[in-house]
């Protein structure tokens, strides 16, 4: 094919390359280099700015910072796991158990909330769960509660909210792979005497691993970087790391500190994704397809 258009300056290449390069360098590479640079910059006593490790030092000195960081990381992994555990049976139901006719409809049904803004979804939970919310009013009315309970602003609710807002990003890629799993494989395994758990362990899970990995990466990323859900549903005295970044940047206007936090978060997400890919022996390029 390469020889099909001989002796030509590659205009097509130039035309395609320039905008793509501008996008990738001006909006991805340079901004992150700037982030890195800012994170190592500080202002000294005389107001002169220069290289410093202070911003990172601060992170390790103040327990509140690294505790928030660790909490965010652990909760993100936990949420990703819960999402996976719920998504597998759901996707299996949609692709392999539900009537063929209703498959498309169920898929769309699962997709609809995904297109509604995260904010609206969180808002829905708030009006359901808060002290004056729908569930409280209902339970008071039928006499199960004597006094209203605040069901928002705790870690369990926050985890549920994060699961809710990110679940679709796990379901969609897994459905994609699960659909292509030939029923005959399951029938054959069953015919050869395998139990349900064996079929799941030996056939289904290995087959859908690429879908699981891409779903997990996206979900993990979204949860780790989410701001709205922890802010609006989480406990008031335990922050999410993105809130920490927001506070440094916007409230304290300490951009260098914010840059250091941001870079740490970026490092963390890359590291965890890298480890996950290595452990499951998946290729990033294949996984994001």
């Amino acid at each position, binding site marked *: 094919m390469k020889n099909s258009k001989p002796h030509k300056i*590659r205009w097509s290449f130039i035309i*395609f*390359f320039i*905008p*793509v390069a501008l*996008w*990738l360098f001006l*909006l*991805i590479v340079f*901004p*992150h280099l*700037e982030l890195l640079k800012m994170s190592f910059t500080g202002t000294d006593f005389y107001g002169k700015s220069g290289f410093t490790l202070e911003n990172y030092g601060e992170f390790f000195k103040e327990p509140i910072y690294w505790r928030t960081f660790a909490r965010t990381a652990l909760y993100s992994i936990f949420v990703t796991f819960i999402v996976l555990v*719920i998504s597998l*049976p759901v996707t299996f*139901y949609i692709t392999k*158990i539900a*009537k063929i006719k209703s498959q*498309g*409809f169920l898929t*769309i*049904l699962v997709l609809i*909330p995904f*297109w*509604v*803004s995260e*904010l*609206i*979804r*969180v*808002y*829905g939970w708030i*009006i*359901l769960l808060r002290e*004056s*919310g*729908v569930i409280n009013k209902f339970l008071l009315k039928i006499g199960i509660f004597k006094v209203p309970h605040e069901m928002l602003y705790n870690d369990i609710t926050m985890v549920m909210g994060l699961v809710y807002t990110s679940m679709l990003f796990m379901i969609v890629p897994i459905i994609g792979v699960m659909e292509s799993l030939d*029923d005959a494989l*399951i*029938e054959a395994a*069953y015919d050869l005497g395998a139990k349900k758990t064996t*079929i799941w362990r030996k056939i289904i899970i290995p087959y859908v691993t690429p879908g699981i990995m891409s779903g997990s990466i*996206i979900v993990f*990323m979204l949860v780790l*970087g*989410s*701001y709205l859900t922890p802010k609006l549903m989480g406990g008031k005295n335990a922050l999410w790391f*993105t809130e920490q970044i*927001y506070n440094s*940047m916007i409230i304290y206007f300490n*951009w260098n500190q*914010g*840059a250091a936090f*941001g870079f740490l*978060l*970026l490092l963390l*997400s*890359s590291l965890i994704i890298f480890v996950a890919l290595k452990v499951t022996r998946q290729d990033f*390029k294949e996984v*994001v*397809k």
Partner: protein
Amino acid sequence: MIRTLPNSRAYTTAYRLFIAVFFIFLFSPLLITMILAFNNSMFPSLPWKGFTLDWFFGRGPDKIGIFHDDSNLRSIFTSIRVAVAVSALSTLVGTMAAFLFEHEDFKFKQAFYFLMLAPLVIPGVILGISILLFTNAVGLFFEDKLGLDMRFLAPGYWLVVFGQFSFITTITTMTISARLKKFDRTLEEAAYNLGANKLEVLRFITLKYLRPSIVGAAAIAFLMSFENFNTTLFLVGSDQTLPINLYLQVRDGSTPVINAIAFILITFTSIVAVANLYGGNKKNQT
């Protein structure tokens, strides 16, 4: 286990129950939000005080409906302006990137490809602050060294567009690439052989083939832009987009006008989704 295999009754029932609970979990917040848009109350909560359309059409003084709510209307308008620009730009560049990665060969192609995928694993918040820091630095440079006031580099409309464009283009690129991968390049040669010039080949053959994916990518880009919060948060100026504006209202407490907005958004997206399903089915039949 699957349709064709026998199952115990208890297993089937338990599975169905699980799926039912799942869908209730999925839809109850949305449904409650929508229902409360019609509650004749000052708060988005029970008890039910009767049906009203005031949260859509009310003119005040106490109940201002969405169609008379200037602040929210303005933010909706801002969001649309942003989404149209992001959708157009990211679809255009995404198409070029798809051609670049599928049809061209160049040094460091692999590296560029990974770079193109990077926004998938960069949290939106980080993307937002990086772009904020960078544009600020560039803006300062232009001002100090050249005495130029680069307004579009300050938080505001263009910065939001750039910020959203930076990661949405990855999505459009992947969407369009997926279709371009399946394109048979001998079709281009055939058209060329039949006397078409290069532009005609592009217009009548390649772009025509890509059109469904380009339309799809543009729609996805529009929706992603319209609902984006994390990246926008750091780049927004005084013109707030709808998600930012809603966030402030939710945080500080608000009237059911938010429910009215949610009602409109959910209805709109559902219609698009169902239309998509219907359209997709029709295409499969031919």
